[in-house]
């Protein structure tokens, strides 16, 4: 109900391209992952979750507040460490990796697009985009960086500081930064949470495009059924467990399932 016909048509095209997931299964796999926070009276944020996200797929993770969806994302991305279970990223077990190996693994394979942009105010757009590669000690691919900046529609703003940009523009810088390093998977945590409707839609279509044209996997946490509808697959969490799954979602179906999950 949010989508215009034209966009919907484009989406269908993209879905077609992603119906052939790359062989070899998940680029991110969680097996029986449990995570308990010591504070909060031992509440299990994740309780034996097993899930895989395939190459070149767009997945959404949904669930009511406190269902563990952000914890799932953090564990999958190696930002948090599970208490038990296995997490593999591109076939490599990361649950047992120590710093700084874990960071090195993450910056080689993972990009982040979070609600709060997480850009460095001190650096220009251009330097923000190149930062992960610089930190990794690799020679930045400047042509590619220029291209992704153009793709997210920020050509000419390279020398601006994040502080001079609007929220949507900042989120597009974050996306360009994630894409510039050619990651295998992009983790997005409420990427549209701070944006208005049309800006949010632009960001989602850019994520969709990355999946379609670059074969990047996207794992997105959201509470917005309309945003989740852009995904190929929606995973529903409640009380730290995977309770449902929906392939080829529409906003209506997602909203329906969410209702069901929430009243369980």
């Amino acid at each position, binding site marked *: 109900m949010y989508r215009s016909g034209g966009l919907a048509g484009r989406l269908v095209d993209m879905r077609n391209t992603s119906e052939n997931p790359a062989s070899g299964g998940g680029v991110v796999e969680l097996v029986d992952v449990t995570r308990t926070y010591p504070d909060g009276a031992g509440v299990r944020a994740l309780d034996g979750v097993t899930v895989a996200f395939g190459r070149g797929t767009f997945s959404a993770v949904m669930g009511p507040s406190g269902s563990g969806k*952000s914890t799932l994302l*953090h564990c999958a991305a190696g*930002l*948090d460490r599970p208490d038990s279970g296995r997490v593999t990223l591109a076939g490599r077990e990361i649950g047992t990796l120590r*710093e*700084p190996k874990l*960071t*090195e693994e*993450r*910056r080689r394979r993972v990009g*982040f697009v*979070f609600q*709060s942009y*997480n*850009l*460095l*105010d*001190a*650096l220009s757009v251009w*330097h*923000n985009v190149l*930062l*992960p590669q*610089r*930190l*990794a*000690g690799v020679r930045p691919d400047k042509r590619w960086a220029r291209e992704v900046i153009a793709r997210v529609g920020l050509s000419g703003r390279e020398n601006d*500081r994040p*502080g001079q940009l609007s*929220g949507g523009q900042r989120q597009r810088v974050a996306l360009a*930064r994630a894409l510039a*390093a050619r990651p295998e998977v992009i983790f997005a945590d409420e990427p549209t949470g701070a944006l208005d409707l049309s800006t949010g839609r632009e960001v989602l279509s850019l994520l969709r495009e990355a999946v379609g044209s670059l074969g990047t996997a996207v794992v997105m946490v959201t509470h917005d059924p309309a945003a989740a509808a852009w995904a190929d697959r929606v995973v529903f969490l409640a009380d730290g467990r995977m309770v449902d799954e929906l392939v080829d979602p529409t906003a209506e179906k997602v909203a329906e399932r969410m209702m069901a999950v929430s009243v369980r």
Partner: protein
Amino acid sequence: MIRLALGTLRRHRGAYLGTFLAALLAVALLASGGLLLFSVLTAKPPADRFGAATAVVSGGREITLTITKEKKDKVKRKTKSERLTGAGTLPTDLAGRVAALPGVAAAVPDAAFPVLLAAGGRPVRGADDAPVIGHGWASAALTPFTLRAGAAPGRGEVVLDADLAARAAVQPGDPVQITTKTGVHTLRLSGVAAPAGRDGLPAQGALFLADAQVGEVSGLAGPTAVAVVAAPGADHSALLAGLRTEAGDAPVLTGDDKVRAELPGALPDYIGPISIFGFVIAITAFAAIFVLTGTVALGVRQRLRELALLRTAGATPGLLRRLLGVESVLVALLAAVPGCPIGVVVANLVAARFRELGAVPAQFTVQTNVGVLLAAVGAGVLVASVSARIAGRRAVRIAPTQALAETATAPGGGQIGRLLLAIPPAGGAIAVLTFVPMGGVLGMGMGFVSCALLLCAVAAAGPALVRPLTTGAAWLVGKAGVTGWLAGAVSRAEIRRVTAVAIPLMLMFAINATMLLNSALTTKLATEEQTLRTAPAAAQVTAPGGLPLGTVERIAALPGVTGTAATLPTRVVLNQGGKPEDHPAQGLFDAGAERALDLGVRRGALAGEGTFAASDDLADTRSWRVGDNVEMWLADGQHVTLRLAAIYERSRGFGELVLPAQLVAAHDPRGLAAMVALRGDDVTDRVRAALPALTVVPTIEAAPAGDAQNQQGAWELLVVISLGFTAIAVVNTFAIAAAARRREYADLRLAGATTGQIWRMATRESVIAVAVGLLLGCAVTAIVVGVFSTAQDGRFRLIVDAGTYLGMLGGVGLLGLLAGAVPTRLVLRRGSLPAIAEGR
């Protein structure tokens, strides 16, 4: 408002810790400095030397000048006094005249004079190194001293107080030796006396001679005081009125004031400590206010986000300003709770150390005055709230619509305003450096004042000065890989943060380096001049406490001694435009064909009686020419007019005036030669053979004589206090700055930085900030030390003492790096990644 403020305080306890700590330090230091100054200002000498007397007529103890100014119709009279180091005498017949007054039971003259006491060849001093003061036996009753053993002194005999007798380990019948300006006298101990319930008086060891012998031993022309004991039932006011008439100009003292009739040298001297503690409070107050202002401003800036949110919630700028003000008052009041007791403790510790150094009298105690404590708290609260309001002035102007978008950056600007603010202190510094003669006694103090003003100017200009330096330093550090590049970029973007940490570092370096270097320079120049002065002499003779002129004359007459010069340290009071001013001076005994001391006479020539010589600095400031007649007052208040015969240049560590030795010996209570310089072949052996009790050292081996020792110790303690305080301030500021960066570090982690990389970046940022702070500090130090040095001897110096300079650079730099590194490490360790989920 208060409830709102209390609420935010409770919620952001951590954020206020820095302000709290700075306020605590400020209150503690202001309190301790204030207590010390208050205690020396109100310190009363123990009032019991004349405990048994009703009133005391005192000889002159100060020089008072009155100037009359006619302004339009009004006539203004200004009276200024300067204390004497000696004691004026009273007419010999005064006691007799006073005794005849109605109601007077007894009038007892007291002639007090300093004595060097020795027993068994060993010098003896009173408790806490107090001087030994000689009196006539009749005046023993004024305390009263009563005999514990033996008998009253007859001719050739002496009575010691019980404390002195114990220290000298002598019994009645034993010989003791006393040295006064009249010579060395060997006397027999006839008895031991003591005040009731004690072994002696505080601050003096008392020695009594037979009254008939006082005049010849002391060299005094009359009594230094006449004490009066009223007859039982006499009318005191009538008695005092009669006394005043009889005494004429001489003051009549009663009650606690009676003790002021005592010899000045026998009273605890609080003049030196007043200037020392004045300096302590000036430095600590300046540093405390400086640092507190900076810390409060930094704290406000780090809460911009919260202020912005309050703004969106409908708070007006005025409300926010008041909120910041009330908050800072609450924090400062809270800080005062531990601050005051800590201040009291610090004051006592400092006083104890100063007592050990001998920079304050042994009797000095710290009085815990509530008024001073309240004033310290008030000052702390005032500074905190004013600086919070000033810092908040721009911050609260955040427009509500911008509030959320611009959470991290305050409305910028005020660049021109800041520069305007920097002009008055900079102008003041230039004025002080240009117009105040830094070469004289004011030099050190003015050096500090100009340094403080320059620091204020730099702090006011702040980012405008820090930006170019940061750019330079960032460019250099940026050569060191990606973390260096990142550190440079972040530093350039966060000029205000760099400024906030660089300024306390600058303060720490500049204040302490200026004090250390200026004092090192003064000492160095004094030593150099001392060496030049004594260069002609083959040997130097000294004795503990000094030598009487008679002994000097004997040495001068020894065969083979071709030149003798003895110096008798004293003080002289000059009339400085109606204000009496105290100057260090020397009596010079000069005999023989060759000059044994080379004062570097520039004009005229040293002459004898009726003349004096002046240092070129003094002659310049007074515009004196050789041949001028100058009026002055000697140590005992004797008014003399002498003709200026010579102007000399080597005055450092010596004195500004040179007077005939006989004149000084007659009017200075001590009147002893501190040092005798000799020329001639084999003089060392000859003097040793003739006078074995004296210390004779070849000039080459002689340590530079100077009583600047305890002053130096006090100065070093001062530097330690100020170093300690500024160091805490630096660490505090760095910690505040680091603690607020958790979010930024989390963002970097998400961008793929390892903790190691963030750590290296933060370290390189510290390097940039420390370099900027040290550069500014070096610049301020260079200006002040350069001008000070030029004023001293015309040579421009920057470093003065390479060891001190490098030590300061290394020490301050290292402290800055550690202060930057440790809090960052803690922040990184405590949650480098989950912070992305919380903390926003």
